[in-house]
C-alpha cells in the first residue's frame, strides 16, 4: 500500500468512525425522546431495548478502575516513586480482596462484615474528620469584617443554632425558623441553580445531537 493510499484509508476510516458514533448517539437519543412523546409500542420497544443494552454494556466499566489503578501503581513501584511501599501493599491487597469476595460472594456475611469494617469505616472516619476542619475554618472565616462577611456569618450561624436541641429550650418556635429558611430563600436559589443547569444540559444535549461537541469520544484519535 502506497503512502497516499494509506493516508486516504486512514482518513476514510476516521470519517466512518466519527459519523458512526454520531449516528449511534442520534438513534439512541431520539429513541429515548420518541418513547416519551409518541404513543408507539415499537418506538417504546426500541428505547427499552437500548436502555437494557446500555445497562449491560456499562457493567464492564466496573473493571476500568482496577486496570487504571494497577497500571499506575505498577509503574510507580517499578520506578520507586513516592509512597511506592504503600502502593505495593495496595497491589497485594486488591487481588486478595477480590478472591475473598468472589469465593464468599458479595451477599455473604463475611464479605458484608469485611466491607463494613474496612471501606465504610474508613470513609465515615474521613468524612467525619471534616467537622474538625469545618470548626477551625469557621472560627477563622465567619468573622464580621464587612457587611458581606457579616451576612454570611449570621446566616451560617443561625442555621447551625436553629438545628440544635438546646435552642429549642430557649425559643420553642426556632425549629419553624430553620425549615422556613431552608424551604424559602435557600430553596429559591437552589431552584435557580437547577433551572440554569437544566437549560445548560438541554443546550449541551442539542449540541451533542447536532455533532457540534467534537472530540469527546476520541473517535478521531489513534489508528
Amino acid at each position, binding site marked *: 500500500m502506497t503512502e497516499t493510499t494509506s493516508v486516504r484509508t486512514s482518513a476514510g476510516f476516521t470519517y466512518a468512525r466519527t459519523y458512526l458514533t454520531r449516528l449511534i448517539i442520534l438513534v439512541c437519543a431520539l429513541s429515548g425522546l420518541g418513547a416519551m412523546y409518541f404513543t408507539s409500542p415499537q418506538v417504546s420497544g426500541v428505547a427499552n431495548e437500548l*436502555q437494557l443494552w*446500555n*445497562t449491560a454494556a456499562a457493567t464492564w466499566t466496573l473493571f476500568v478502575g482496577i486496570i487504571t489503578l494497577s497500571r499506575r501503581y505498577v509503574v510507580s513501584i517499578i520506578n520507586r516513586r513516592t509512597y511506592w511501599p504503600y502502593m505495593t501493599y495496595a497491589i497485594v491487597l486488591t487481588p486478595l480482596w477480590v478472591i475473598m469476595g468472589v469465593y464468599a460472594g*458479595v451477599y455473604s456475611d463475611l464479605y458484608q462484615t469485611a466491607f463494613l469494617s474496612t471501606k465504610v469505616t474508613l470513609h465515615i472516619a474521613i468524612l467525619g474528620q471534616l467537622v474538625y476542619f469545618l470548626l477551625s475554618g469557621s*472560627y477563622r472565616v*465567619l468573622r464580621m469584617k464587612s457587611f458581606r462577611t457579616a451576612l454570611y456569618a449570621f446566616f451560617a450561624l443561625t442555621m447551625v443554632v436553629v438545628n440544635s*436541641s438546646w435552642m429549642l429550650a430557649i425559643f420553642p418556635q426556632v425549629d419553624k425558623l430553620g425549615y422556613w429558611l431552608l424551604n424559602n430563600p435557600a430553596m429559591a436559589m437552589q*431552584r435557580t441553580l437547577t433551572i440554569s443547569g437544566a437549560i445548560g444540559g438541554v443546550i449541551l444535549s442539542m449540541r451533542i445531537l447536532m455533532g457540534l461537541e467534537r472530540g469527546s469520544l476520541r473517535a478521531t484519535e489513534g489508528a
Partner: protein
Amino acid sequence: MAKIPELKSQYIWLVVLLVYISTGAFTLNAPFQMSQATVDAYNYVESLKPGSICVLGGGNVFAFDLESSAGQIAAIKQIARKGLRLVEFPTGVEGIMFHRYCIDAARVDEKYGGPWKYGRDYVLLPYVPGGTIAVVAFLTDVHALISTDLFGTPIKQVPLMNEMHSYKDIALWFMPHWAAETYSPYIIGERGVPLLFFAQASNYVTAAVYMNIYPDKMWVTNGFLGGAQYEKLVGSPGLGQSAVDGYTILSGAFLGFVLLGNMTLLSDVRRKEKVEVKQ
C-alpha cells in the same frame, strides 16, 4: 480591650475531640424539634394498605448514605410492622451492601425474630449500572431488566417478584441516597409514583425544589435530624438520636468558637485603632 490571641487549629480540634468522646461515653437523649414534612411522610406510609409493594431504590456512596439510614431503618421497621413488602433495587455499586445493611439493622428478617421472610416479603436485587437509565428501565418493565436476584435465583422463582412488573405495582419509592433530584422526574413526574427521600443535610435544599414541584407526592427529611424525627415517630431511637446528641454539644462549641473569633477580630481592630491614634 486586651488583644485576644488567635487560637491554633489544634486546640480547636482537641475541644471537638473531647465533645465527641463525651457524647460517645454518655447518652444524652437530647430532645429535638419535629418537622411537619416528616410527620406527613410517616402518615402517608401508615395509610398504605397491607401487602403493598414499596421499592428501596438508588444507591451511591455508603458513607454518605449512612446519614439517610437513620430514617430508612426506622421506615423499614414501620413497613414490616404494617405488612408492606419491599423490593431493594440498587443502582450504585455500594448500594447492595447498604441495602442489606438497612435490612439487617432493622432486624425485620425472621432470623432475627422479625415478621419478614426473604422472597415473600422482601427481595434484594443485584446492582444495575446506568443510574437514571436503570431506573427508567426498571419502571418500564422489571422482568425485562432483571433476570435474577442478588443470590442468583431466577426472579420468576421469587414469589414477590411475580407481583412486581412495572411502576404500576409500586406504592411508594424510598430513596436513602443522593440522587432523588435526578430520579424524581422519572419516578414522580413521568409515572406518578410517590417518593420518600431521606435526604442528607447537604442535599435537603436540592430535593426541596422537587418537593415544591410535587407537594403531594414527595416528602423529604433533613439529614440526621430528620432521621431522628422518623425514629421517634416509629418508636425506635438509633443512629439519628446519637447524631442529635453529638450535634447538641457541637453546635454550642461552634457558636462559642465563632463568637471567640469575632471577639478576636474586634480586639485586633481596636488595638490597631489605638496605634493609629497614637501615631
